């Protein structure tokens, strides 16, 4: 599991191995993490998820050995909001 930018500062780490239940989703893994680090909670609706360096939907099913990454908003994201939301 990998964290970047402000997420990594809040959690005090950049990466870590973790045991998630079989078939867990990136959203569920982030929720577990946010229980340990309350500051992360604010990001739960503003994240993108990546598995093995590809964007995936929040409900993607994780497999053993997957590397899941939590992608906070990038700086130029505003235009995306206007165009797609």
């Amino acid at each position, binding site marked *: 599991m990998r964290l970047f930018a402000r997420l990594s500062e809040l959690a005090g780490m950049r990466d870590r191995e973790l045991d998630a239940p079989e078939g867990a989703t990136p959203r569920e893994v982030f929720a577990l993490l946010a229980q340990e680090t309350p500051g992360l909670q604010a990001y739960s609706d503003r994240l993108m998820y990546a598995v093995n360096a590809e964007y995936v939907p929040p409900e993607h099913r994780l497999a053993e050995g997957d590397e899941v990454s939590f992608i906070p908003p990038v700086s130029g994201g*505003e235009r995306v909001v206007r165009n797609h939301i």
Partner: protein
Amino acid sequence: MWFEITSEKLTAEALIQRVRRDNSGAVLVFLGVVRNHNLGRGVDFLEYDAYPQMAEKVMREIAEDAQQRWDINDIAIQHRTGRLEIGETSLLVAVASTHRREGFEAGQWIVDRFKEIVPIWKKEIWEGGEEWIEGELAPKQAG
């Protein structure tokens, strides 16, 4: 095509040489440069964080999309990470095309798209404070 995330200084001439070919009459070069102010306050320096393996993949996807849309001969993109001082180059894009129009149009589109979806983040640091600059929402999925 060539893509790189690096902590080394960026030089436009090196990137130009990666895309220039004898069949291209135009090489468009874009430099993103660290500015000394943002959101009405001064900026002392920036720190960039990135997910390099994924950023390089997403840059390639953007370049392949651009090649579908415009008649482009070659594209190279580089982004720097770590601490960058005012005036230093953070982003370099070079687009080689047979004619200039395609280069200008593709170049603008590539830089806009880059800022939307490539997993790279910047922190502004000023006297007495710092802030990660985040868009309103998460990046839109490529494609």
